[in-house]
């Protein structure tokens, strides 16, 4: 798998994501235990400027504040292979770890002390790794509520060599939820992170469905599409004034009117959206109390 260095003769064993020339320049510095200026500023496993000491061992329970993708605190180091005792932090067996391009490739290569070139290299996993954690595709995406769908990731996957493309932040950068509209058989998906306000959401709905809605009414009434007339905009979704109103289903399964709660709260609880005909919603008038809607039939 790309990313694991093969044994590089004469160099300390590091993961191969650093071009060789660059690495060799640094290794000269590191073999001395003096600390260069650069070294002091590097992100390390130990305290800044210091080296590992045995005191580190009995530290507090590892809290690992960083998300799974960052293996800093928990990166293993190489033990001396021959001995049965494990001197945890023998000076010659530990080096500091560099984080390369932290915003792109978040991983810590394991430093290995290899007293003899015959012993094999300890592997660490750069994050994220193909096939880890070992979870079937059908179990991924449960958190997004797309649990009934098998993920398309189950297609044949070439190991992703460009780690910068993988999501490494703890929160996904997009939140796509399904949105269906009365009278339109095909649903769409809308990204609530890209459309990050009620107004933007409202415009997005108009964009997504205006054409589809027009096509529906054309086909159902069998009239010749008059392009000069244009398509009617979908508006008034949030205040009850339009022909359609936006509602959503939250994480408890309840149907709610969009717009009552602050946007962030809305995004954290919304599971799917629906554009209903305003005439179908009882008690829909400006100034009505915020609350649940009890609509007949379940939201599909």
């Amino acid at each position, binding site marked *: 798998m790309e990313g694991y260095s093969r044994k590089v003769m004469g160099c300390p064993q590091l993961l191969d994501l650093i071009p060789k020339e660059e690495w060799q320049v640094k290794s000269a510095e590191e073999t001395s235990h003096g600390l260069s200026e650069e070294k002091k500023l590097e992100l390390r496993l130990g305290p800044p400027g210091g080296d590992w000491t045995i005191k580190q061992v009995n530290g507090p329970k590892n809290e690992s504040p960083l998300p799974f993708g960052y293996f800093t605190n928990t990166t293993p180091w190489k*033990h001396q292979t021959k001995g049965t005792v494990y001197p945890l932090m023998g000076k010659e067996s530990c080096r500091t770890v560099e984080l390369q391009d932290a915003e792109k490739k978040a991983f810590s290569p394991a430093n290995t002390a290899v007293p003899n070139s015959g012993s094999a290299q300890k592997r660490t996993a750069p994050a994220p790794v193909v096939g880890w954690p070992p979870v*079937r595709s059908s179990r991924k995406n449960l958190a997004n509520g797309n649990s009934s*769908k098998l993920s398309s990731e189950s297609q044949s996957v070439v190991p992703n060599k460009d780690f910068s493309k993988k999501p490494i932040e703890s929160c996904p950068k997009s939140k796509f939820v399904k949105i269906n509209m009365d009278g339109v058989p095909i649903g769409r998906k809308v990204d609530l992170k890209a459309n990050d306000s009620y107004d933007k959401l409202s415009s997005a709905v108009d964009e997504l469905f205006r054409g589809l809605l027009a096509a529906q009414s054309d086909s159902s009434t069998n009239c010749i599409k008059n392009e000069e007339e244009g398509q009617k905009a979908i508006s008034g979704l949030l205040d009850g004034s339009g022909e359609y109103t936006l509602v959503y289903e939250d994480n408890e399964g309840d149907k709610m009117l969009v717009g009552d709660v602050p946007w962030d709260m809305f995004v954290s609880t919304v599971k799917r959206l629906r554009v209903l005909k305003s005439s179908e919603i009882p008690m829909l008038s400006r100034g009505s109390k915020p609350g649940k809607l009890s609509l007949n039939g379940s939201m599909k």
Partner: protein
Amino acid sequence: MHSFHSMLNYFPEEVLEHIFDFLTSHRDRNAVSLVCKSWYAVERFSREKVFVGNCYAISPERLIARFPRVRSLTLKGKPHFADFNLVPNDWGGYVQPWIESIVRGRVNLEELRLKRMLVSDESLELLATFFPNFKSLVLVSCEGFTTDGLAAIASNCRFLRELDLQENEVEDRRGQWLSCFPDSCTSLVSLNFTCLKGEVNLASLERLVARCRNLRSLRVNNAVPLDALQRILAQAPQLVDLGTGSFVHDPDTESYNKLETSMQKCTSITSLSGFLDVSARCLPAVYPICGQLTSLNLSYAPGIYSDELVKLICYCNRLERLLVLDTIGDKGLGVVASSCKELQELRVFLSDVYGIGNTAVTEEGLVAISAGCPKLNSILYFCQQMTNEALIMVAKNCPNFIRFRLCTLNPTVPDAITMQPLDEGFGAIVKSCKDLKRLSISGLLTDQVFLYIGRYAKQLEMLSIAFAGDSDKGMLSVLNGCKKLKKLEIRDCPFGNVALLADMGKYETMRSLWMSSCEVTFGACKTLAQKMPRLNVEIINENDQIEASVDDKQKVEKMYLYRTLVGPRKDAPGFVWTL
């Protein structure tokens, strides 16, 4: 003095056959057929169920030649790591040649169970057309077929008893496959279509359930809403195993009240699953049957948090099998430990594969379970962290583990308290659990853990290793010590040629070996392939062209080897090279 052997020869064959009828396990039957030639002959004509753990180990023709009366066939295809996207989809495992051979061999096939195989609609249609007595189709983790193939099965298998689809990738053709069951079909005992994404005709489903009075197991998919479920339950109170569809509804409605009533009448349900889409407020409908459940699977239920899970589970005093997400938390597992004293199997899955996992479970939950559930013998546990101390305690509390699979989110995480490797913890497990058959280890691990495994895990049949070990010694310890090892799968470990080639004969005693991102080279694989003609050594190389002049010193990305009686397979795709 007559020998025992010749005394037995006085038994007519029918008597031997009758005795063999009592042997249901295929291993017993295999053992019996090795005793002597006459036993071999009697056994092979009387064998009706055949299990083939690797579809490429034998050819269908040879199987049918040996077992002409086979009625039930189980086949497994792709290696296990295919579940985690490590094996390309078209690697192989086609069922089509098997079905064609069975058709040609005029075998009276009644039952087909497939796992990780490629199944086409054409295969299903052949099955439906040529096997009028076909009774049972079980497909697990298969792909390549659509609902059209299912329609063929539904239409033509007049005596179908079981259609069980688990975790397959099925293309939905919107052909209303379920409506293809004719009105005359009343034989269904088990129907599971949870993994299908598309809609089914609800009226057809209800009518089907109504007329199949022997239906014991029904698992529907997410497209079946709660009110439909209620109508179904009203028709089938005899159900033993239920998989719900969408479990979302407004609890203040009549539909929901009716569901509660219908559920209460289902006094036979002992196994409950589904909940692919669920609202916590609907869960109370299930409370009346909790006390009778022995198996509960909530592992596909997103958004049900620990408190709600616990409210449900604390009623399930007879539970033997529980599958949940890690949203249950350590505290929730503590409640499980105090409520479910009969628990034998527990699986805790990741709820959020990419995230921080604040709700993830730790070693505390595992220890609590082990302390409270003495009958625990099988566990799959995805956790944030682990400690040796915890594992040692678990080993002490539960010496009966048959399956022990631990997976830490970070594959090389050390002991959370001592920062040591987890060697001692797993060592304690293998030492204590003398019947351990399956083991998956993870966390920071050195060669030491493999020394323990080799020394103590004498019954071990399947071992999964990732990101562990320091040297070839590790792998050698396992190969030398685990005499009953059948499947070994290794990824990202520093095991190389020395370990691979040390005992080549060992692989003929095993079903298969998988090694990916390790240190084995082409040269070593070629050597192995040359010396062991009864092994297929396959290299999967997705990126480079496979050329004859590959450097022997080059490391192999993915190697899969398995014993076989029929030589290299002819259906290997371009990126698979059999050496």
